[in-house]
């Protein structure tokens, strides 16, 4: 895949529009998904995703292939998404990244794990929860949404997240932990209702 990307990039740098078009088609949905996770609004995500490709095209001549094309593209998309959110945000209290004892309590006593199960391929409930997850994600602060989206859509490692966001690895770990705990809290109400329904329907 990566070698193929490089071949297309080389052709696009030489002025082949079809090659650039192929790169857009290849990554458009994933770039949109990253933008959507961060900016929340679907139309804004569409614009941000397009702008990312336009920026990439504008700097194609300067791309030397030191990082992969996709890393470069997603870095631009991430920064554009964060900029878009910050432009829209009037004021929002920043959350701390360190983990406190209070953060470890009130986790729901296993209700999510019990309800969701641990088999992503066969768990129908996971698919049914897609919309709830989207809603829950939108309740998170921008920095928590961003790190969670980059981790899950792009699949970035701790080191890559640290580099992308300009923070230390320790901050990445604690910020991710907070993001997940907040997702867990947002989804808890749904999971508890679901578990209660199951109990009531049981013979």
């Amino acid at each position: 895949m990566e070698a193929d990307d490089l071949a297309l990039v080389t052709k696009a740098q030489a002025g082949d529009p079809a090659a650039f078009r192929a790169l857009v088609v290849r990554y458009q949905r994933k770039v949109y998904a990253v933008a959507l996770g961060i900016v929340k609004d679907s139309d804004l995500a569409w614009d941000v995703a397009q702008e990312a490709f336009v920026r990439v095209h504008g700097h194609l001549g300067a791309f030397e292939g030191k990082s992969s094309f996709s890393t470069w593209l997603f870095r631009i998309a991430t920064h554009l998404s964060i900029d878009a959110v910050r432009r829209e945000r009037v004021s929002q209290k920043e959350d701390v990244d360190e983990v406190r004892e209070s953060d470890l309590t009130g986790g729901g006593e296993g209700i999510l794990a019990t309800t969701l199960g641990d088999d992503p391929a066969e768990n129908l409930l996971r698919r049914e929860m897609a919309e709830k997850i989207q809603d829950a994600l939108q309740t998170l602060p921008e920095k928590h949404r961003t790190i969670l989206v980059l981790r899950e859509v792009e699949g970035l490692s701790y080191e890559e997240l640290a580099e992308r966001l300009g923070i230390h690895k320790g901050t990445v770990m604690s910020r991710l932990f907070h993001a997940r705990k907040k997702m867990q809290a947002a989804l808890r109400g749904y999971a508890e209702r679901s578990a209660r329904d199951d109990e009531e329907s049981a013979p």
Partner: protein
Amino acid sequence: MKDCVRYAPMLGAREGELTEEEQHALDLHLQGCAGCRATAAELAALDGLVGESLMARANARDFAPFVDEVMARVGAPGLAPARGRRGFLGWFRTHPRAALASLVPFVAAVALVVYVRLERGGESGPMASLEIATEGEVTMVLQTSDGPVVLLDDGEHS
């Protein structure tokens, strides 16, 4: 609980992301801490859901116009036209011969008007009009700035 604060952020780590020392210490802690084992199970249950959900949204959206809009914005040739190249001028660039051919009637009309104006020498009023009189035979009278000119038909010449 103090140890839990230290180890909780490590719970979502993927294989190889922690150092050997970190992984060993975490494993030891989890063996003796039911709370962190439960937290780990909770977080594992959420793992992948956000990405799955976002990609589902992206896949559900019609992306047909996306690439054309991007290509139009970057001004790639042979693709959807950018705003600045729309209209007759943009069409002229891509079809110069057809554009020139379409201009011929217009240029001819302008040339005729200019010629007639030069012939008139600046006089006002209608320069010429055509009248048809029917007095037994068909007679055509052409009104010109120099006065009426009667056009006789072939019968009167014979």
